[in-house]
């Protein structure tokens, strides 16, 4: 029997029951564009699979219970110490289960890589404008995944009930408690009474292993189906248009590459976990509210939040005898709320500013959208300053600095540096546009100097290839929106203030160095 016959038999069996052949035929030939930055989302997806596998392994031994036990395992320094069953079973996984420590480390490292990949993927999508119509919905799903990831990660490292993670839960409890009016009630409901109680660990366990992974699966499925259905975006270049997709077919090239890449991500995660220790909970000891480890740090994706809380001014107000803790509410809930809502709404804000309602499948080069790129740089700067302050104690001890100075530097920095980053990035983008223009008009510098007969030195320029020239001129430069403040009869239009804001932003958004035009090229020819 030939291969074709054998495949035919299997296909016949399945197709007669599902009618899938037509759909499969089309989709096995589906084309995916290739670019290294498209791998970032894949890294996140594969890390999620690694998390499911390693997490399931850990559940076989982990006992999510706050029940008090006396430790009798093989780790001598904690012999006879009173601790929760959660902590004791984590020690058991680390010291007695063969491969258990490796799996714990893979699970933790994979979580860090998962979050890093999500953030990197988000930046790629933002800076290239991949969130524009028709992909706004998928952008929002992505923001949802990022938010869930932060929560899921926090719950995960809270489970072992060691001194460090218990301190993290204590801080989370204080944030809940700070919510006006209902805070202490919410906290008592979440913890089944006073902090820390015995209900919290089992509760967050089921959220961590069932509820949130379920939500992840649903959202990731939707995310991927949208990518599949809308087809992937592609970078601009010769032969690439808004109407086509240039790349490799799913079968066999993409399957081999993507499948192989999963193993590479898993292999690299295993390697890091084999050689780099992470979260050595046995060194921290079991949680008790009266003690703490110096240099308490959350995982990196929570670090910015901790940094904001650290730099908050000591502000608390009393209102008819009731307390409002602005020092917790502003950095812990209000600022993150504004940041994440703004991020989720950004596609709609940008399309409102530009008035652009068309579909976009070709990506922007970041320099050709200076305002957006500058906004991204501004947000990253804000997050970095906050993250730095989240590690201010470690920076202080490592570099022999005063913690007070670092705190004041970041308090001022978080206000001054982001706008500065905006201005610098925007200038940089415009300069890069100018360089592109020069390149098209005058060619590239060869480094060869010529001495002319009358003694003048000139550098020889070489024209760039037509492909490159096309890449540097194919982007769109839309003019700002025309929103006249007065109508034809000289009467102020309704919503004048909103229109003024919109046209101001539109002008800022469309600021650009004019790209090379046909007239420019003609002029060059005449010289």
């Amino acid at each position: 029997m030939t291969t074709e016959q054998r495949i035919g038999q299997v296909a016949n069996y399945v197709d007669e029951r599902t009618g899938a052949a037509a759909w499969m035929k089309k989709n096995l030939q589906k084309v995916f564009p290739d670019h290294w930055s498209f791998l970032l989302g894949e890294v996140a997806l594969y890390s999620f699979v690694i998390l499911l596998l390693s997490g399931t392994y850990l559940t076989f031994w982990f006992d999510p219970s706050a029940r008090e036990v006396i430790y009798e395992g093989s780790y001598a320094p904690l012999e006879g110490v009173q601790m929760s069953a959660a902590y004791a079973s984590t020690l058991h996984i680390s010291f007695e289960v063969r491969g258990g420590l490796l799996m714990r480390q893979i699970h933790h490292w994979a979580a860090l890589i998962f979050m890093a990949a999500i953030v990197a993927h988000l930046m790629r999508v933002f800076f290239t404008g991949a969130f524009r119509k028709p992909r706004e919905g998928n952008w929002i799903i992505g923001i949802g995944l990022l938010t869930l990831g932060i929560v899921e990660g926090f719950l995960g490292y809270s489970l072992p009930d060691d001194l460090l993670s218990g301190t993290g839960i204590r801080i989370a409890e204080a944030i809940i408690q700070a919510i006006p009016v209902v805070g202490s009630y919410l906290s008592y409901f979440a913890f089944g009474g006073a902090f820390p109680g015995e209900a919290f660990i089992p509760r967050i366990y089921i959220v961590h292993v069932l509820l949130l992974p379920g939500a992840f699966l649903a959202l990731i499925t939707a995310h991927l189906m949208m990518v599949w259905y809308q087809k992937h975006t592609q970078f601009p270049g010769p032969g690439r248009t808004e109407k086509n997709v240039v790349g490799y077919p799913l079968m066999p090239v993409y399957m081999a590459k993507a499948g192989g890449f999963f193993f590479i991500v898993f292999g690299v995660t295993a390697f890091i976990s084999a050689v780099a220790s992470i979260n050595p909970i046995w060194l921290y000891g079991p949680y008790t509210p009266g003690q703490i480890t110096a240099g308490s740090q959350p995982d990196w994706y929570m670090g910015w939040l901790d940094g904001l809380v650290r730099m908050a001014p000591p502000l608390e107000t009393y209102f008819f005898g009731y307390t409002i803790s602005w020092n917790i509410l502003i950095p812990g809930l209000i600022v993150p709320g504004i940041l994440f809502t703004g991020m989720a709404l950004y596609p709609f804000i940008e399309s409102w500013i530009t008035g652009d309602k068309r579909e976009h499948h070709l990506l922007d080069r970041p320099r050709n959208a200076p305002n957006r790129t500058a906004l991204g740089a501004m947000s990253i700067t804000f997050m970095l300053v906050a993250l730095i302050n989240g590690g201010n104690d470690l920076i202080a001890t490592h570099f022999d600095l005063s913690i007070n100075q670092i705190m004041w530097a970041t308090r001022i920095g978080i206000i001054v540096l982001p706008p500065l980053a905006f201005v610098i990035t925007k200038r940089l983008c415009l300069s890069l546009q100018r360089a592109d223009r020069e390149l098209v008009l005058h060619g590239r510098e060869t480094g060869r100097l010529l001495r002319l007969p009358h003694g003048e030195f000139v550098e020889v320029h070489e024209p760039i290839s037509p492909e490159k020239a096309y890449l540097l001129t194919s982007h769109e430069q839309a003019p700002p929106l025309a929103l006249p403040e007065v109508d034809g009869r000289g009467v102020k239009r309704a919503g004048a203030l909103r229109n003024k804001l919109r046209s101001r932003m539109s002008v800022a958004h469309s600021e650009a160095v004019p790209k090379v035009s046909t007239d420019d090229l003609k002029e060059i020819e005449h010289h």
Partner: protein
Amino acid sequence: MSNEIEAIKDPGLPAHVHRKADHDPVAAKRAERQVAILFGISSVGTVLLIASFFIPEDIFIFVPVMGSQNAHQLGLGLGMAISLFFIGMGAIHWAKTLMPDQEVIAYRHELRSEDVDRKEFVVAVKDGVEASGIGRRSLIKRSLGAALGLSALSPILLLRDLGPLPGNDLKETSWKAGTYLVTDPGDRRIRASDLEVGSVAQVLPESDDPEHRKLNDIAKDAVLLIRLRPEEFNLDAERLSWTHEGIIAFSKICSHMGCAVALYEQQTKHLLCPCHQSTFDVTRAAKVIFGPAARPLPQLNISVDGEGFLVARTPFSEPVGPSFWGRISS
């Protein structure tokens, strides 16, 4: 739009450059061998993993840069890493050298449906709504709305027993008038003379069952004792009377977010919370001198009994730990 007339025409996809393996059978065979070697290395990794499983867990080996490593853990991890990584490398090398590398073009179709379909959809929805009569029968509409809204209340109600109401719980601790201060750990009563000038001790209220202290109690009861020279204090008369021979007692639970305020700087007499660096001045009744905390640490009023053991004279005069809405209301 400004780019309706392109200054430079699209030159189209660059010409495809064939790889050596595409036309040279020797190169193709070599690529095949390379792929097989990569898969082979993966198998070696799996063998290493299996072998490492039987290494006793108490053997440590020295690895340059990394230092002393547990051989069992390291072998398992490296074996797994090699076994997985090289499957991936093999597959990608295979795709890159032997599978077709000619880029293909597929066409996008507008996502938008045909106008006819869109019109028919609107009609279908409209007909459906009309057929149900929900627009005309307002009694049904309103009663359904009310029923759905009310039914959404049940989950809230069913979640009520997640926890008790806080009541006065957050405002009370185990400290009563006459409670002895005992060491933690150890649970021994303390005399003033046990504490040298400049030293710090963590204490808890004396308990009938010190073996089984609840974490919930420790989370509110933990207290720090610090002994200074009495003239170093800068307190008002009332707060000074709460100290005993230079010994002052504060709640160890940070007034900001409830971490244990565990770092004491002897030189400056500052208490520092390691979580968010709130800094409290011991000589001025734990006044906040830096960081995000908005309130001083609550001070415990202490004295000694007839035998010279330290004892709480009154309970805490305010709730300990982080702020909450009803903290100072009665």
